[in-house]
């Protein structure tokens, strides 16, 4: 669970240092509110929700403090990502940068569904939005990535 939590955090904020901070905060909050988790429901979705909310809190704080949310964080981190051969490496790094360029609300959806493998419904519950909202943000996110990665040039329906 801890590696998955860390992966979600790094993918959201684009920085390993900030991610580790977020994971710690999320674990503190989880321990403090352990009785709010209902046995029989998905534990990982519950933890992702806590972490995501901690990330949103941080975004709000850094914005009001006048610190620009760094798209470049993802770009910098891209150079440290492991990959297979050099060509695949470059390509995946560019995909990673595209993830970082997505608006926050699209990024969180595409990570929950395509990386952490939550269903649309589970992602909707985690984010506290209707499933239709999840689906439309997810579709926009994937289209952007496809266009940016050069695998699609079509217009949306």
């Amino acid at each position, binding site marked *: 669970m801890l590696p998955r939590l860390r992966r979600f955090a790094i993918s959201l904020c684009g920085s390993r240092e900030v991610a580790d901070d977020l994971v710690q905060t999320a674990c503190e909050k989880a*321990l403090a509110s352990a009785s709010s988790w209902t046995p029989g429901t998905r534990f*990982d979705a519950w933890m992702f929700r806590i972490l995501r909310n901690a990330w949103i809190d941080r975004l709000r704080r850094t914005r009001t403090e006048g610190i620009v949310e760094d798209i470049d964080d993802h770009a910098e981190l891209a150079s440290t990502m492991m990959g297979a051969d050099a060509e695949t490496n470059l390509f995946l790094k560019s995909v990673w940068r595209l993830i970082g360029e997505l608006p926050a609300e699209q990024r969180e959806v595409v990570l929950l569904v395509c990386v952490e493998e939550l269903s649309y419904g589970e992602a909707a519950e985690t984010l506290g939005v209707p499933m239709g909202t999840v689906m439309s943000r997810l579709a926009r996110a994937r289209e952007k990535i496809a266009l940016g990665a050069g695998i699609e040039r*079509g217009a949306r329906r």
Partner: protein
Amino acid sequence: MTHPPTDEELMAHADGALDAKRNQEIAALVRKDKVLARRVEMFRQSAMLVKRAAGPLADEPVPDALRKSIEAKISASRPESPNVVPFRAKPSVQKVQRPWALPLAASIAAVVAGVAGYSLRDGDTSGPLQQIAVGQPLPSAFAEKLAAAASGEEAQLNGGRLRIVTSVFDRDKALCREFEYDLPAADTVIAVACRTPASSWLTKLAIAAPASETGYAPASSTTAADAYFDAIGASEPLSPADEKAALESLR
């Protein structure tokens, strides 16, 4: 006449998330229309790319500093007293009550930290928890029973009574069994042990519960084991038939 698919429906079709009827309708439309087919393919490919780009991050080792800091937080949330924190038996458990907060936090903490298991009583040097120690393989007398007896069966073991409660599979498809062990004049232990590839049974969870007059731990005290199973993403309890098959396959 079926209505044309929205972009979101094409995506759901690519993800296998549509209901059977609409999925069939769209599949038929996609077969006849290259533009639709390419759109579906775009959704498939973009998901695959995202997964490949970010997926491997979970394979990175968790930094020591982070792991240690989280383990420290978990320790800080444990009770100070070396004595057992008793389960308070509740007549019915409709939702999570205050007395359950610690066992649940323990399960959650154990899963978050990737700790092999969690025991409410550390440093217990006597009594049943000496035999049923988290992170240790069960003694062979217990192991033999766990490998053969059906859930619901009881056996006398080392002066106490063993009762097997249920069987599940964990996320790695290892067989895990919940059982109770009751020594006279001692707390009942509720435990979970999982079968390892090396054919031993590793204790994952061990909780001491106050025995009632009948000597059985109250039914509500198995809530902690349920919480542990949920936290580790275990399967539903095995039916008697499935359990029998699982035990047979151990030989």
